[in-house]
């Protein structure tokens, strides 16, 4: 029942939103879809494989920059630019993946963080993409088009995650997450599955970055290589439920709604209260909100202690 009703209901809600919303609410909805897709991107590597990337913003930035440069400097049209952005991020992931994916736990987190920061600094030194000034691009599309582009990226991210979780690939990811040595002893080529998930994660984040660049019409290193994006992806996924299909979607929705509400009502201290909300959720529902909603995880004082042991990111 839920298996069919949920995707269909969610799909209708997403597609119908522009019919009832425009202006600020529609842009807010686009933002929510963007964070859902970003959370799903992190989920592919961090949630499914248990490799806590803190550098997924690198892919987002690559997507944004490649699209901006191709559209503004080389006068490409939008869709080829989106495809090229995804390929560029995939190529970058394929080059650094086999190196950083040899590490795990904190070491992997730090390596990815460093890679993303370094990439942002390198971009500043490239005059062709505007150096520290960035690129201004104009694509003649409206808010509704951007919204549907973002929805398409989200749909792709959901489809990728669904296909992985459903097949034997999903087993391989769960095995890698739980015990990579044991996975190898079962005949799982962990390097292959990890690198593939990492590449798919890169594609999704890059597409989000591309659409974001078109939407905001301006990219510069501090805005699209902002490490806060990486952290937000982690937080949204952990809140919603890492390693699940709908967890990142639910997490992104909840946090964004709470964030908006707090921002509107408690302008000066909204991040403080948002932080408290996130800490409470993560402590009491260590596996996330989605497993709780589907009854896979109870809510009790015991989860406080379970959480301290489980979250070894």
């Amino acid at each position, binding site marked *: 029942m839920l298996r069919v009703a949920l995707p269909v209901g969610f799909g209708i809600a997403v597609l119908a939103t522009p019919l009832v919303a425009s202006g600020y609410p529609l842009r807010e909805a686009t933002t929510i879809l963007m964070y859902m897709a970003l959370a799903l991107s992190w989920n592919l590597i961090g949630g499914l494989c248990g490799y806590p990337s803190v550098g997924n913003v690198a892919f987002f930035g690559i997507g944004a920059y490649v699209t901006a440069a191709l559209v503004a400097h080389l006068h490409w049209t939008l869709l080829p630019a989106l495809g090229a952005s995804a390929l560029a991020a995939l190529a970058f992931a394929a080059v650094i993946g086999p190196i950083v994916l040899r590490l795990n736990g904190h070491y992997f987190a730090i390596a990815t963080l460093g890679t993303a920061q370094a990439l942002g600094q390198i971009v500043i030194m490239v005059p062709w993409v505007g150096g520290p000034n960035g690129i201004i691009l104009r694509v003649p599309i409206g808010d509704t088009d951007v919204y549907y582009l973002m929805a398409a990226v989200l749909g792709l991210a959901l489809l990728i995650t669904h296909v992985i979780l459903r097949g*034997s690939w999903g*087993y*391989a990811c*769960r*095995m890698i997450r*739980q*015990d990579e*040595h*044991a*996975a*190898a*002893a*079962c*005949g*799982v*080529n*962990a*390097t292959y599955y990890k690198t593939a998930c990492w590449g798919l994660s890169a594609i999704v984040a890059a597409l989000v970055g591309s659409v974001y660049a078109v939407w905001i019409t301006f990219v510069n290193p501090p805005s699209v290589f902002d490490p806060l994006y990486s952290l937000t992806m982690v937080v949204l996924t952990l809140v919603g439920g890492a390693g699940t299909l709908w967890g990142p979607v639910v997490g992104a929705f909840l946090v964004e709604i709470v964030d908006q509400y707090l921002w509107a009502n408690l302008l000066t201290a909204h991040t403080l209260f948002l932080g408290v909300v996130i800490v409470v959720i993560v402590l009491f529902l260590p596996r996330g909100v989605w497993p709780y909603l589907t009854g896979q995880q109870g809510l009790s004082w015991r989860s406080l202690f379970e959480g301290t042991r489980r979250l070894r990111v």
Partner: protein
Amino acid sequence: MSTALRLEGVSKSFGGLQAVRAVSLELKAQEILGLIGPNGAGKTTLMNLIAGAYRPTAGHIFLGAREVTGRPPFAIVHMGIARTFQIVRVFKEMTVRENVLVGALFGGRTDRRAAAERADEVLEFVGLSGLADRTTGEIGLAEQKRVQLARALAIRPSVLLLDEAMAGLNPGEMEAALELVRAVHRSGVSLIVIEHLMKVIMGLSHRVVVMHHGQLLAEGSPADVVRDPQVVAAYFGEHYSRRRQRSGPWAHRAPRADTGRDGDRAP
């Protein structure tokens, strides 16, 4: 008898430490080979070398006629060498059935349906059918060890490496585990068994090799090996060995293998 697994001058050093030195040995087809030695002798390192977790610094390892040296662990599994771990490594968040299913799925390289059938078959064989739908993290250690064995069997290996599969089991569980290993052997698998418990080694192995300081010290039938003065010296120290050879107070007694240094681990 043909050879299932052959090691030729296999060595492994970690920095300045030579954990395994020029070990050559053969596992014959359909054989149970016991691998014993004091703590730190290099037994588990040797297992890790065969399974591909470590790459040998020197030497060659052959499975039948094919060389496995230097291949990644998953590829060695595909060639037909399965293992269990000394410290149990099961997928605790999966059910017992899933743990075994993934062995067949990735190690045996079958499709989902065949893997599910194979899993049920192996669970029946090891006597875990009743626990198939339990979460593996919630069942006892003896059962988890069985899950680990079942997972390895689901791969349909020709060679199985058991690293202390019996340690930590109570006498009843151990009897059952011994019977299970014999049944595995009867099904046509060649085994290398590392065990500290002499009772297990004596009762199970066709042939025993003894490692000490990373080298092969002795090889032979279980009964001969425990009488070997070098082996006694390795386990009990030179002093005891010399005393025994010189008509000491215990000279008239047959050596009692099950009082080995790690005999106190036996329940």
